[in-house]
């Protein structure tokens, strides 16, 4: 090669050695955008929602790095890397959401969780990987006035019956 001439040599042969398909997927019960389905929570409420990693296509295991890109003030992850076996769809990524107790009704916080496949880093000039971001709003809503649990209702009835029985027994005693 001549001096001053830039030659960028690429790893053409290496391409032959790498896999031809990279596959990945993540499913979420909440999303934004078209027909958005936000997560509705009460102030002070804490919940854990599972994001679902899938690797149903291809024969190679996939490793994902996971990071919260937005909404870290209310959302947190248990771990940052997940290995997903080939032909599986049951890897769950728990996402803990905690709404502050001083939040206002109607407050909305965007949560964005980013998934990136971690490639082997070999072969080719530019290795291609896949990534997905899960994005949804967490909306603070008013807590509905809940009905009393059935156990409390039953307990109340029992107490009432006992009270009535005690009163009537007392009266009978007085009559005697």
């Amino acid at each position, binding site marked *: *090669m001549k001096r001053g*001439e*830039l*030659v*960028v*040599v*690429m*790893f*053409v042969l*290496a*391409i032959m050695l*790498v*896999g*031809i*398909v*990279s*596959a*990945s*997927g*993540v*499913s*979420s*019960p*909440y*999303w934004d*955008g*078209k*027909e958005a*389905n936000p997560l509705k929570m009460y102030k002070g409420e804490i919940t854990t929602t599972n994001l*679902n990693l*899938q*690797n*149903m*296509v*291809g024969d190679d295991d996939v490793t994902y790095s996971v990071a919260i890109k937005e909404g870290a003030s209310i959302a947190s992850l248990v771990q940052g890397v997940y290995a997903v076996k080939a032909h599986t*769809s049951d890897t769950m990524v728990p996402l803990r959401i905690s709404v502050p107790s001083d939040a206002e009704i109607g407050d909305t916080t965007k949560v964005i969780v980013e998934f*990136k*496949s971690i*490639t082997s*880093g*070999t*072969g*080719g*000039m*530019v*290795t*291609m*990987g*896949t*990534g*997905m*971001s*899960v994005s949804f709003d967490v909306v603070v809503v008013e807590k509905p006035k809940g009905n009393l649990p059935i156990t409390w209702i039953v307990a109340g009835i029992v107490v009432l019956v006992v009270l009535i029985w005690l009163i009537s027994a007392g009266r009978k005693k007085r009559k005697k």
Partner: protein
Amino acid sequence: MEKKLVYFSVVVLMISLMTVSVTSAGYLDRFITGRVSAGVNVSVGITGIHPISDVAIDAIDAQTPTENGITYVPATVRVTDSDGGYDVESVSIVFTKSGEATRSDSSCDFVSAGGDTAVFLCNVSMWYYDLNADDWSALATATDKGNGSYINSTPVEFIYGLLKAMTISPSSISWGTLDAGDTDQSAIDDPTVITNTGNYNDTVGLTGLNLLGANSIDIFPATDFAVGVSDPACGGDQVNVSPINVTDSISSRGLGATEEFYYCVPTVPNIPTQEYSTANAGGSWIVSY
């Protein structure tokens, strides 16, 4: 004492009347004939004349699509018939969502019958590319065995989740040998074929990474590359280390729905001669939904 005995007798009589089977015969019953022999088993199928009075679907859990496959969505249907649970001929169910193909189970499985209620289990196949929505609607229909009439349930809504999933091929791209100052150099093994194996339906993104030289010092900046959905891509979007939405890209939903990315180096930079790759930088470019 006598009074108590009378009350007791009346109560016993009433209980007896309530527990005795009541039978009756109409005028036409005189035409029913037959000879009964001892030791012969006779089975009679009895169907009721009363129509089904109620069809109800249990709440359906939020469903997760399966990458490039089918999710079987179970739905339990309870049918009430005053003639008894066995007087239900069949149950079917349909899932609908405006603008989407209808998914259904035309013959739900009978599970059990007790009293005036029969329980059926339906299994509906939903495809990975069916639209994510929180208002997919389930409607069951039950047909009466005795009189053939049918009745619909009240619709029940359920969530079908979002699935962002794809395959890409090939898993790397190259340019062969480039000379400094060369212009409009297309990749030799593009396009990257992106197959949508989920139900995401929007633009497709790309995040670049600077290529690093074999000496781990010199870089081939990601911004010296361009990407587009048609070939050549030299006038396409500039690749960046931060995510970009590739112009005119779309992840269509459906069987075998694909998008293609083509790449170009509009002007080869003046950098030292050596091998450059993302592998040297310990990462990759990311095609993203």
